[in-house]
């Protein structure tokens, strides 16, 4: 269970992390050029909408499809994503995370079904049309389903928020706001639900707490700090940049993917949001208008005279609570990855060491030494990937050898494929690669995947070890 949850988290991260650069690019453009940005520019601000509406979801859909089924899966994943994009009015990151991998999976199954049944010479034609037709069906399906679903969720969140607000249970609103934000409903919630209430309150009291609830950058900041301090790999490295965009630029969208790639972190931002809202209430804090975008500067600018302490206190409390709670989940997740990866790396290194002697006699003897490895976690293996650089020679032969050996062992159902090392599919259970590529393969493969290096691609005891694990 824990392992599959980890794998799932790793898979989500695999869709988001490669695209963080594009998200930052969009965040910068937004922070600079929107009407309330640092250097407003009506012309350049035209980039903002299409980029978040189309570019980012398509990139995520592509990455998702590619994880499942290489470039071909990526193309269909991106195509299918288009259905949810056009079918809804909000940026469909979540929809892309569903449609991308789903598209990749569908074309993969379809290819497996028609494999070996295509007349020679027609492969290209059949491949393109099968994928094209499937893509069309997926787009139409997504298009028709997504609109009502999103509209339903938005209405539900909106009416729930109104009920809670009217019942004066403000901190509980965080339970709706934070998940809603992560689903990219932030603007719908803020401008659609809270702004009207806030404006009414300002007329009466001169300020309103409703302008603070969604726009408070504290909870998001706490989460990103948790990634920065306790995260691992690209999540950790990209966090500082995201913090700048989020906290100073006010583009909260940048932290949503960090929640999506480790969904338990939603608990952290909710806790941060609740604590912050409670603090705002205690200090009787409020703003005079909605800060847009929700950057620290915009919030301070909208703070009425004498209200500074309350606003700052809420932001700080939100940040600290979110950081503390999120840390638990960020740590648990990356801690496991580290442990697992470390163990695999060591066993892979031992195996590489064992492969060094070239003489056949010595190899057999060494193979006995790595027995311990074979007994280690024998899980259900469905897919073995041979990773290489070009996929022109050695990996093709290795795949062929491994397939023959698996067939001899009566394990024909296990899938063996080759893939470039930077595109190792995330559903691989075992990854084999040239001894020199083990480190790179480790970085690309999903956390927990067993990675082994070989030097001899035809006769190596590693294959027998792998077959024993199947």
């Amino acid at each position: 269970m824990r392992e599959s949850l980890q794998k799932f988290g790793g898979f989500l991260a695999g869709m988001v992390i490669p695209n963080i650069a594009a998200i930052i690019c969009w965040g910068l453009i937004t922070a600079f050029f929107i009407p309330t940005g640092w250097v407003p520019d009506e012309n350049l601000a035209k980039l903002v909408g299409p980029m978040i509406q189309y570019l980012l979801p398509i990139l995520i859909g592509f990455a998702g499809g590619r994880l499942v089924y290489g470039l071909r899966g990526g193309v269909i994943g991106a195509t299918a994503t288009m259905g949810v994009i056009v079918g809804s009015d909000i940026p469909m990151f979540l929809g892309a995370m569903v449609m991308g991998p789903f598209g990749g999976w569908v074309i993969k199954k379809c290819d497996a079904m028609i494999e070996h049944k295509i007349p020679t010479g027609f492969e290209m034609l059949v491949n393109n049309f099968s994928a094209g037709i499937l893509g069309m069906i997926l787009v139409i399906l997504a298009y028709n389903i997504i609109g009502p679903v999103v509209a339903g969720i938005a209405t539900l969140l909106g009416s729930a928020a109104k009920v809670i607000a009217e019942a004066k249970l403000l901190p509980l609103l965080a339970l709706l706001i934070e998940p809603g934000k992560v689903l990219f409903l932030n603007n719908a919630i803020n401008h659609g639900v809270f702004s009207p209430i806030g404006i009414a309150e300002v007329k009466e009291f001169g300020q309103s707490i409703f302008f603070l609830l969604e726009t408070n950058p504290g909870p998001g900041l706490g989460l990103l700090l948790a990634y920065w301090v306790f995260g691992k790999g690209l999540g950790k490295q990209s966090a500082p940049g995201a913090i700048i965009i989020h906290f100073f630029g006010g583009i909260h969208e940048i932290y949503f993917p960090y929640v999506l790639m480790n969904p338990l972190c939603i608990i952290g931002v909710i806790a941060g949001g609740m604590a912050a809202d409670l603090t705002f209430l205690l200090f009787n804090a409020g703003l005079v208008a909605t800060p847009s975008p929700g950057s620290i500067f915009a919030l301070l600018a909208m703070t009425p005279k004498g209200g500074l302490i309350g606003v700052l206190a809420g932001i700080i409390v939100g940040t600290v609570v979110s950081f503390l709670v999120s840390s638990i989940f960020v740590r648990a997740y990356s801690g496991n990855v580290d442990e697992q990866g470390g163990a695999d790396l060591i066993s892979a290194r031992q195996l590489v060491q064992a492969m060094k002697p070239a003489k056949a006699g010595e190899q057999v003897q060494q193979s006995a030494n790595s027995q311990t490895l074979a007994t280690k976690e024998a899980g259900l293996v469905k897919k073995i990937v041979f990773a290489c650089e070009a996929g022109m020679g050695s990996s093709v032969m290795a795949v062929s050898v491994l397939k023959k050996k698996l067939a001899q062992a009566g394990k024909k159902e296990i899938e063996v494929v080759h893939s470039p090392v930077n595109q190792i599919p995330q559903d691989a259970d075992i990854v084999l690669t040239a001894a020199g590529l083990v480190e790179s393969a480790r970085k690309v493969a999903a956390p927990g995947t067993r990675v082994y290096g070989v030097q001899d691609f035809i006769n190596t005891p590693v294959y027998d070890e792998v077959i024993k694990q199947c």
Partner: protein
Amino acid sequence: MRFDRNLVFIKSDLRSRDEIVEFLGRQLVAAGAVQPDYITAMHKREQDTGTYITEGVAIPHGTEESRSLVNKTAIAIVKIPGGIEWIDGKKVYLAFGIAGNNDEHVALLGGLAGLLMDAGQKEQLMAAGSEEELFTYLEENIT
């Protein structure tokens, strides 16, 4: 595709890995299978990860980027009777220079892999004394 008799050689005057890669590359160019820059890519590939695949055998080929330089699938074969050191003290007696940019050569390589897996067959292949014998053995045992 099938093996090409004109691309099977036995050479004793090749003294290093680089000379063998160069030789195989030129044969592939001469056969119209690849563009001349493919040879550079073959050398690069050797420097990157090397193409030694199993005891006594290597399969020099280009890099991912050089796929576009391949005109048609072809395999050039050279046997070096005395063997040469390929990498880390490992000797190579038989080198297959590969040009492939689609799946056409996959079946052929699969066949070759099957042959090399079988100790007896591999021994017979390595023992081939003439170019004719080498070609015939490959033709008959790999389809």
